[in-house]
């Protein structure tokens, strides 16, 4: 099986622990469900990710150095 995370188009995905999630939500003053979504079946998702987890994605941005974005795992 091909290791998807090795592909140039795929940025780094990691599961965010709950304390960090609260920090992020507080910083942007939003609810969990306001975050962009990612499907549970997404091939780039780490194996341990479950529905309801928030995934931290670190992209190599075109406009700044690195961009950190978050996605909520949904069914």
């Amino acid at each position, binding site marked *: 099986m*091909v290791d998807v995370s090795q592909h140039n188009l795929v940025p780094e995905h990691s599961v965010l622990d709950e304390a960090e999630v609260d920090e992020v939500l507080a910083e942007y003053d939003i609810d969990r469900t306001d975050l*962009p979504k990612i499907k549970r079946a997404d091939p780039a998702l780490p194996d341990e990710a479950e529905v309801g987890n928030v995934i931290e994605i670190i992209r190599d941005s075109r*406009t700044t150095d690195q961009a950190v974005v978050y996605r909520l795992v949904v069914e």
Partner: protein
Amino acid sequence: MTEITDDIEAVVEDTNLPKRLKDQVYSTVDERDGVTVEQADQIAKAVENRYLDTRVDPLDPVGTVSAQSIGEPGTQMTMNTFHYAGVAEIDVTQGLPRLIELVDARKTPDTPMMTVFLEDEYADDRERAHEVVWGIEATKILALGDISTNVADMRVQISLNEDTLQERWPRVDSTDEIAGEIAGIIEDSLGVTTVQDGTSVEFGPEEPSYRDLLQLVEELRDITFKGIEEVSRVVIRKEELDSGEEFVLYTEGSAFGDVLSIEGVDASRTTCNNIHEIYRNLGVEAAREAIINETMDTLEEQGLDDVNVRHLMLVSDIMTNEGTIESIGRHGISGSKDSVLARAAFEVTVNHLLDAAIHGEVDDLNGVTENVIVGKPIKLGTGDVDLKMGSFSRQSGQAD
């Protein structure tokens, strides 16, 4: 030449600039002669001010600006050109049709293609690169030999070309063995019994029937003996890259998932122009990147490269926001808006109003379109800000 001292670094690092701009400040200072720390500080401050000035203000309608910024250059794009315009004599849809295809998120593009990069050992050896080509390109019977139909005996006779067999199956030594493999594939897919003699294979319908015989020949032509069904042609090209020369394959037709697992294919750089295949195999984040790349390439190819990539990033963000690829337009983003009036204002007005009436929908008037329709201020820019006039007492100068 001015050396970047710790002091200069300190004043630059002190600003609120992103890394890329800081680097640019460093290189500019580095190029000039005799820049003092104070001057460096002023430069950094000036750049910072300009940077803060050019940032998008809160409540700016970025979507509208993006729509205009992509739409206007779109008027200058070619309506219809797709003739060997791409790399390596492969037909690719370009210009407006391609852009529409991307934002509509079509399931399959008009001209699917893949760019296949090879792993080190394969990339600089033409022979080995060809091995990969034969693994990808669909090999049909006509490429392997001649078919003749013997109507008298009701038999189909295939005489395979030994050189071609050897070329396309470089790992197998005897051509008889390859012919046996081919006979096996024919038996499996047509449900007939074959007779193999050296490199010639013969078979016929169970019951003598002229129609069945022709039917078999017809089906025989469609069987893929090697490679990937969807890929009709592969072009091999030597490319100059930063790291030196290497062979790169361009394919007509795409099967991204299958290609990634073929031996010799570099699964970290290979891409295709079908965003849905990228989504299925690499996930939503890769799809987002692919949409940005493809739209930007389409614009650049038309000489419209001064469209800021941020507009395309915004489009791509919206399209992948729900974790899947959604199209812009009636069936996608615009059709899933909360507001009835906003949807009705876009397309098929009567249907939306009728459906909304049947389901008793309520419009909360939160968006832009619906507020324009009812004549209320929109919640954008100054429209979202409430100003209240306070009164000042003469003595304290404090607001009451």
